[in-house]
């Protein structure tokens, strides 16, 4: 499993300062361990939608397949976000229909980055970094930044307003989650 790291930044929610973080282009065992020991008790406690997710099981299935790639974001010695993407899916927007894109299968931020938790440092920007990573991979793959995903209901605003992705509406085959896709132009704008 390859693992390149990139220096990125997150914003400390309390101080407002940008803090150096590491983006890994592969989920490593320590990230899965972190998810299990530090994230899961908090998500289970609050019965969050993400509480259903079991990254260990997902990664055991996805890791051997070339179609999937993964990312993990680390800061302050903790895993702050995880993402698995699929590189063989195709676009739905008419102007780029049937062209390849990077499809975000799963993206999750650590529980303390979703809501304040006493004793845990909250960081802002996990979503922006992960979307930038998906766009960069799409560019590297020759897909010009095209990406797509099904957003959890509470994240629709982020993808529509903050990222500028096109909202293609609820997808009946995906539990009516809204499907969002990013055009090449919007991807270029996002990365500037």
């Amino acid at each position, binding site marked *: 499993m390859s693992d390149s790291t990139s220096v990125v930044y*997150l914003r400390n929610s309390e101080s407002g300062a940008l803090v150096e973080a590491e983006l890994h282009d592969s989920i490593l065992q320590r990230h899965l361990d972190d998810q299990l020991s530090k994230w899961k008790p908090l998500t289970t406690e609050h019965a969050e939608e993400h509480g*259903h997710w079991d990254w260990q099981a997902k990664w055991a*299935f996805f890791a*051997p397949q070339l179609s999937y790639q993964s990312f993990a974001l680390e800061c302050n010695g903790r895993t702050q976000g995880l993402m698995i993407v699929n590189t063989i899916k195709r676009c739905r927007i008419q102007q780029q229909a049937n062209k390849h894109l990077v499809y975000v299968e799963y993206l999750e931020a650590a529980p303390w980055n979703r809501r304040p938790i006493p004793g845990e440092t909250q960081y802002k920007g996990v979503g922006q970094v992960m979307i930038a990573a998906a766009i960069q991979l799409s560019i590297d793959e020759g897909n010009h930044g095209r990406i797509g995903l099904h*957003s959890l209901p509470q994240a629709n605003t982020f993808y529509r307003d903050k990222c500028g992705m096109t909202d293609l509406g609820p997808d009946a*085959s995906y*539990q009516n989650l809204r499907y969002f896709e990013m055009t090449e132009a919007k991807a270029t704008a996002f990365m500037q």
Partner: protein
Amino acid sequence: MTLELNKEWFDKRIHQDEEYEVGAGCPGLEAIQQTSECGQAEREDEEFAETFAFGTLIRFLRRDRRLKIEQLAANARVEVAELVKIELDPNYVPQPRSVHQLAAYFDLPQRALLKLSNVTMVHSTQLRDAAYRFAANASQISELSREERAAMTEFVEFLGSQDS
């Protein structure tokens, strides 16, 4: 892949007062089956490791004995369609009878296999951890490698120790 963005990009993009949820992906598990549809997720994700390990174990044992699905179905007296679902669908909960038949055919511990297949709702952390380790070592290639056979043997031995 490396991401080369300067610090100003992050300063511009990430605001202190923003309150965004960013989760994406189907809360269910059907997407894992590469069908591009997540459909109805009826079962908890946590059960996935066990059923995935169960299906993988059956597939490994079948391949190890160089049997086609139809041959195993006939030998173990299990429906072909049921066997295909067991091997391929990590969300599928098999019929208890099929688990018994397969356990008898492969000489596997019945009770541990029933737990693994999620027919019974009794789970243990040890079983789940062992299922993870086994599933993580399972690749998709047709011939069982030495590592896969070792993982399979270790897992079967573990199941034997859990058969109570």
